[in-house]
């Protein structure tokens, strides 16, 4: 079966790749550093307050940041080598003479790269066992969301690197282009412009929130990257046609992304419902229709980010017909003066209006109930208290700094010998 041969070939190419073994060896220390740091902080907070942050936010999000780092700075080199290696060595000229199309070839590479990434995630995944051994609590749905987010993020990196490897003549050019895009999306994210950047998407998953629009858009971008790679690896097709096909594919995917951006379903899988209002509040909010919020806040104003993250993101999920308008286009920069109404947040329901300047979730809810003349629900005692843990991370340093690197190194040597 040529497909099986192809998959085995890509798997072998991955296992002879030193950069992949380097990634595996580094994943242990990277995970160890972030796990131990977050674990100690979590234990200190637990001891001090008697209750603690949720393990998802306090431990798992920082621990899995090792994956984010590796996906940005290490994974692209492995993907570029695997996708561009055949062309650089000349093997592609032999392989293309088979009747298999490049979409299958690129697909096989992507599957193997994802499998390779899954192996690289073993050290952070092993931290779950350690945590459980220390008596920590694990909540599978939120951890599933976290893992899914990092796999999607790796998929995006693989697709981007594959596209760049197929477009650029040399691996170094492809690496520079890939890093430019990934670091560029970080900058976009820092400026607060990127709702669908990989970093923004991972942040949502790290909070246990699965957004359908972000997931579908990520999958569409993965499809685009791999599609472009498949188009540009067809050496026997005229360049003009490849440019046209790439353009057409990009347009089609852009249309799909635009459509997907209207998808509203989302699932808050966090144990503490940290991305949602309480169930009682959500029931009360669902009775309110035609609410408009006008916020006089400039895009660069941190209060606007606060309002978005603390209240509006939860509100949009609870009230699909909510309308939000940002009025202030001006900033409070050096040469500009804010208007007198700057900073005001108006809540409008029919002819009634309420104004507040507060950006906390509680204050926003209070204003909404007031303007809509809805009785706020009684405060519930059923509040998420977190899972404090004051244990010592015994053996974690040995596992992450010693055992994982040693195990991967030994496997690397054995596999290299076996493959001869």
């Amino acid at each position, binding site marked *: 079966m040529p497909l099986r041969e192809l998959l085995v070939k890509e798997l072998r190419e991955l296992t002879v790749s030193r950069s992949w073994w380097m990634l595996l060896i580094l994943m242990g220390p990277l995970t160890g550093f972030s796990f131990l740091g977050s674990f100690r902080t979590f234990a200190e907070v637990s001891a001090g307050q008697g209750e603690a942050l949720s393990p998802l936010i306090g431990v798992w999000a920082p621990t899995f940041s090792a994956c984010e780092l590796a996906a940005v700075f290490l994974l692209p080199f492995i993907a570029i080598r695997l996708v561009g290696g055949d062309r650089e060595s000349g093997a592609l*000229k*032999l392989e*293309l003479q088979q009747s298999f199309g490049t979409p299958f070839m690129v697909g096989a590479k992507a599957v193997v790269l994802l499998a390779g990434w899954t192996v690289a995630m073993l050290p952070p995944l092993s931290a779950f066992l350690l945590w459980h051994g220390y008596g920590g609590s694990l909540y599978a749905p939120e951890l599933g969301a976290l893992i899914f987010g990092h796999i999607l993020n790796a998929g995006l990196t693989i697709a981007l690197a594959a596209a760049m490897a197929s477009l650029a003549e040399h691996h170094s050019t492809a690496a520079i282009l890939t890093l430019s895009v990934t670091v560029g999306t970080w900058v976009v994210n820092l400026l607060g412009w990127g709702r669908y950047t990989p970093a923004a998407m991972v942040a949502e998953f790290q909070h246990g929130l699965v957004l359908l629009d972000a997931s579908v858009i990520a999958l569409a971008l993965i499809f685009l990257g791999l599609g472009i790679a498949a188009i540009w690896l067809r050496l026997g097709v*005229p360049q003009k046609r490849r440019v046209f096909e790439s353009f057409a594919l990009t347009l089609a995917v852009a249309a799909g992304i635009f459509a997907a951006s209207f998808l509203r379903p989302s699932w808050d899988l966090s144990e503490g419902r940290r991305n949602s209002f309480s169930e009682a509040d959500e029931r009360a909010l669902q009775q309110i229709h035609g609410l408009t919020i006008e916020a006089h806040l400039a895009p660069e104003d941190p209060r606007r980010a606060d309002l978005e993250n603390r209240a509006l993101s939860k509100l949009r999920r609870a009230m699909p017909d909510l309308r939000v308008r940002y009025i202030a286009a001006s900033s409070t920069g050096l040469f500009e003066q804010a208007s007198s109404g700057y900073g005001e947040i108006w809540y409008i329901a029919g002819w009634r209006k309420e104004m507040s300047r507060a950006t906390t979730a509680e204050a926003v809810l209070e204003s909404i109930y007031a303007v809509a003349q809805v009785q706020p629900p009684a405060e519930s005692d059923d509040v998420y208290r977190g899972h404090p843990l004051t244990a010592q991370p015994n053996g974690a340093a040995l596992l992450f700094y010693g055992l994982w690197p040693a195990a991967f190194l030994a496997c690397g040597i054995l596999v290299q010998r076996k*493959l*001869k």
Partner: protein
Amino acid sequence: MLFEVRGISKRFGKITALEGVAFQVQPAEVLGLIGPNGAGKSTLFECLAGVLPCDSGEIPPRETLFYVPDGICPWPGQSVRWALDFTLGFLGGDPSLRAEVIEQMDLAPVLSQRIGTLSKGQRKRVLLAIGLLTRQPALLIDEPFEGLDLRQARDIASALRVHALRGRTLFLSIHQISDAARFCDRFVLLNHGRVRGEGTVAELASLAHLATDDLEEVFLALT
């Protein structure tokens, strides 16, 4: 006739690499593609194999031929043994030829070696083995004797002849005219991207209005 090539043209920007190339390939013949450096021999092979787009012209169907490029080092991290097995599995090679080809190409001592660590001559023999294992009726080999010493070149020539006698068409791009004269039945003479002549040495000599059976003389007269 196994296949016919008609009106193949290829330009790289302002440079014309091939222009209206046309010739015929007969079954089970050893056809030599000869021409000076830069004549367009490799470009023609790549166009015929479909790994380089040609601007115009008719190329033979994919299942008719297999092309072995010159100067490539495929799968450098993999062993020779694996490359041959991959050829059989993925490229649809003939498993019954495996042992014979390994012997003909003298690959037994390097089967466990990685392709990236082989010498130029050893790598050439691996590439020839890959080509010989494939099933397509015509095998296009770019510079089959490049990097081989005299003894190896003679051994390889004998092995190739065995495959030709069994009915496989060999179409070889050879820049050493003496090698081509010794080994090929017919020739396609390419110069500046155009076919200057096609046929046996005698037919090419007649085209050049020469009374000689020396291919070098004919080559110099026609290029």
